[in-house]
């Protein structure tokens, strides 16, 4: 019985530690940069919770730091909607976005996004970047406005695993 109890204690400790490891808000740790169009897997509690309330949590490497500062500085008029946050959460998310932005992190995606971007460029929309336009130049205009797609902001309409950071061209399924 003694061993049994001790075993439970050890198990409970291991369980608690591993639960903590999963639930603690990490400082935005990258787990390696997969090749192709796979994005580094990032974890950041506020970014995932807040940004993903209305759309997918767009990867920080889709825009440069200056863009993220503009986006996060205007949340009360966020593409026509009020997405305001309390100041502490807003600052926390901006720090994470800046640390992992296209011009900050050495990710493959970041390098691609920065190609052809001027030093003073700070686009507000990911869809305005040259990289995005080039990548989607074969998609007809009418496709974007289909009811099943809604808008170009809805990555997951066609990139079904967008929320997991998977944007491989082979996995694209454009809905009718």
């Amino acid at each position, binding site marked *: 019985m003694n061993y*049994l109890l001790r*075993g*439970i204690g050890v*198990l*409970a400790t291991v*369980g*608690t530690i591993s*639960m903590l490891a999963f639930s603690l808000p990490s400082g935005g740790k990258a787990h390696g940069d997969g090749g192709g169009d796979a994005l580094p897997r990032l974890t950041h509690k506020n970014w995932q919770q807040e940004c*993903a309330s*209305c*759309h*997918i949590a767009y990867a920080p490497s889709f825009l440069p730091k200056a863009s993220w500062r503009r986006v996060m500085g205007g949340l*009360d008029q966020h593409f*026509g*909607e*009020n*997405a*305001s*946050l*309390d100041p502490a959460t807003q600052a926390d998310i901006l720090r994470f976005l800046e640390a992992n932005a296209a011009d900050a992190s050495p990710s493959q995606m970041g390098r691609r996004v920065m190609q052809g971007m001027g030093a003073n460029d700070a686009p507000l929309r990911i869809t305005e970047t040259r990289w995005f336009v080039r990548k989607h130049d074969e998609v007809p205009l009418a496709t974007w406005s289909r009811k099943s*797609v*809604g*808008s170009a*902001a*809805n990555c*997951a*309409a066609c990139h079904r695993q967008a929320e997991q950071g998977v944007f491989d061209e082979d996995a694209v399924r454009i809905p009718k």
Partner: protein
Amino acid sequence: MIKQVFHSGLAMLGMVSAVAWATETPASLMVHYAATASVPVSALSAPRGAALYRTEHPGRNAQTVSCAGCHTADPKQAGRTRVGKRIEPLAPAANPERFTDAAKVEKWFRRNCMDVLQRECSAQEKGDFIAWLSQIK
């Protein structure tokens, strides 16, 4: 056996943390908003809440906006954000997590009232809104 004890321990931990995060109920929030509006809880009105939900207001781009626009005419159904992401149902009967976190409730009233009404909602309006949603079976 060990596994069972471990699992029930985990489940208990989970419940404790769930309780710690969700201390409010629709009823306790109604009490809070009624008190803020200096009216008795009995003065909160479900029909007024329903009207607030359904009324169309002039929006920014010559289109009308309403709560129902994104949350659908039936708050027991899931809605869709403007960019197509699912919104879990608003009515507690369909989604028990609703109106259990005061900070979350305040955040969304602030944002969505500004979008739909171009102003913040009053405490009375917030109370009416929850009174209506929480009596939906």
